């Protein structure tokens, strides 16, 4: 496991923050961490990179305790409120961070990264004169400087234009291809849907859903069948396979545990000689899932 947390808690004077977080992130996956504003996403990331001291629980990152020097050399982090020394030029910022990482002869790596994030041509300008999006691009380059095994990106596209967003998505896919682990904080669900393997959803400081993105979406989807009048015993028969069966007028709504149960359902309906006109999987999008889960919890702030 690249990240493992055990009841990790960080609260500010007993309020806010994140509470009892139990997560494990595997090597090579892109992990999406979602939640509404003020849910505790940034708090968790800052705790994992050692900026905040946990108020409870424990965690291991790259097999080491939080803030361990040996792990820090293999971690990249793009903060949410990125700011870089504004008296330096972009190039100087990169050199400074390369020195902090103790990278020998970083010149080539730096120019590659500046190219990658689309800043080449601007590297001689003072950071003070960078636009917000340019600063975020610089932050991304800094995060990738040490060719890290684990990258934390806290809303990496918040200031980027549409093209920049696509580029970041490609960078993340590329990292995954190279076997790197990415921890992505975001509330841009479409973005998460496109790149993440697994997600956790946090609301009011607590995790309310966690798992494989496909499974999560599947669990929250249902099979609908348009049928004629149901044969006797059909519902009972279906209930043996499905998790939940509901009949309203001529529509059967069936929740199944796994994809492989769908043909079985079809078979049962057909064999019962109930006329079957239509059978389809009604999926939910991540957005619907997210809104349902978060609405269930309500409120923006987790002032508990």
């Amino acid at each position, binding site marked *: 496991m690249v990240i493992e947390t055990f009841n990790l808690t960080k609260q500010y004077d007993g309020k806010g923050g994140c509470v009892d977080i139990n997560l494990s992130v595997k090597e090579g996956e892109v992990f999406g961490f979602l939640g509404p504003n003020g849910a505790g996403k940034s708090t968790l990331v800052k705790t994992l990179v050692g900026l905040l001291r946990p108020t409870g629980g424990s965690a291991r990152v790259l097999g080491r305790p939080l803030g361990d020097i040996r792990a820090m050399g293999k971690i990249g982090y793009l903060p949410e409120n990125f*700011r870089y020394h504004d008296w330096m030029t972009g190039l100087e910022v990169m050199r400074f961070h390369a020195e902090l990482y103790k990278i020998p002869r970083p010149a080539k790596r730096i120019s590659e990264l500046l190219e990658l994030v689309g800043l080449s041509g601007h590297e001689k300008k003072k950071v003070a004169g960078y636009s917000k999006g340019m600063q975020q691009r610089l932050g991304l380059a800094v995060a990738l400087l040490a060719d890290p095994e684990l990258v934390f990106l806290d809303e990496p596209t918040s200031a980027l234009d549409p093209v920049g967003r696509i580029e970041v998505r490609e960078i993340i896919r590329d990292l995954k291809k190279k076997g790197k682990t990415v921890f992505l904080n975001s509330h841009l669900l479409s973005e998460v849907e496109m790149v993440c393997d697994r997600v956790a959803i946090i609301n009011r400081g607590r995790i309310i859903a966690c798992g494989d993105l496909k499974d999560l979406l599947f669990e929250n989807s249902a099979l609908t069948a348009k049928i004629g009048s149901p044969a006797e015993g059909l519902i009972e028969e279906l209930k043996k396979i499905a998790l939940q069966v509901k009949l309203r007028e001529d529509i059967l709504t069936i929740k199944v545990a796994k994809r492989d149960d769908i043909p079985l359902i079809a078979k049962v309906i057909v064999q019962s000689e109930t006329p079957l006109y239509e059978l389809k999987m009604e999926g939910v999008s991540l957005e619907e899932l997210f809104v349902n889960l978060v609405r269930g919890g309500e409120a923006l702030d987790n002032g508990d």
Partner: protein
Amino acid sequence: MITVIKYTFKEMFHKKALFFVLLLTLVYLTLYGFGIKEAYEALPRVNTALLSIYSEFITVGLYFASLIVAFLVVISSAGALSADVESGVMQAVLVKPIKRYEVVLGKFFGIGLMVSLYSLFLFFGIIFLNKALGARVVFSFSQVFNGALLFLWIPLILLSVCLWGSARISTLGAGIMAVMLYGFALIGGWLEQIGYLISLGGRSATGLINAGIIASLLMPTDAIYRKMNSVLFSSNGIYFLRNNLLGGGAEPSLYMLLYAATYMVFMLHMASRSFTLRDI
């Protein structure tokens, strides 16, 4: 840590305040030079008792020079850690394979180096002006060397205090705290001198002297300044400097020097500790 030292040193050049201080320095040295030139020309040239007058001019020059250095220290270090935390720059720095105490010490050595160079410039500037404009004082090499070391030690003590403040509280808070402590030390120094002068007259003034000692314990900068005076202006056991508010008087003991050294190390330790424990 070397990286932090290097970039802290570089960063100082990008602060507008530094140029303001340099300007202040030039104005000060010009005025001071003009003042002593006029004064030394007006003095009769024979009387050997004049030695103490020259010493007095030098010590007054150094006194105000140390105030300018203290000003430089406060403006360049009160925000050394806190301003970077407040602006968010620190977030990206501290997630590197670097211990937080290295950042604190890096700031100390980076700013300390700059301030020391500046102190040396002022120290030798004042001595040079006096020599060039006719002060008939003779310093041995060891007097100047030790005097210069003591002179540049003063701002380093203040710097360690500023960094502790900066590690714990806001830039403004750290600045105010450092200025207040430094002010205590100055006023405490005067009180102690007044007490000393009174006690020379045969009356007891232990209250004043104790107040001065307490101030020196809170911030030993003024004690080091007086030690520097006694190093510079005594030879063969005779102390040339006359007693006044700014200098002369009782020479701080060796224990005071040891205390000042411990004080500085302790402040740096507390700065590192506070910075390690805090949330960024």
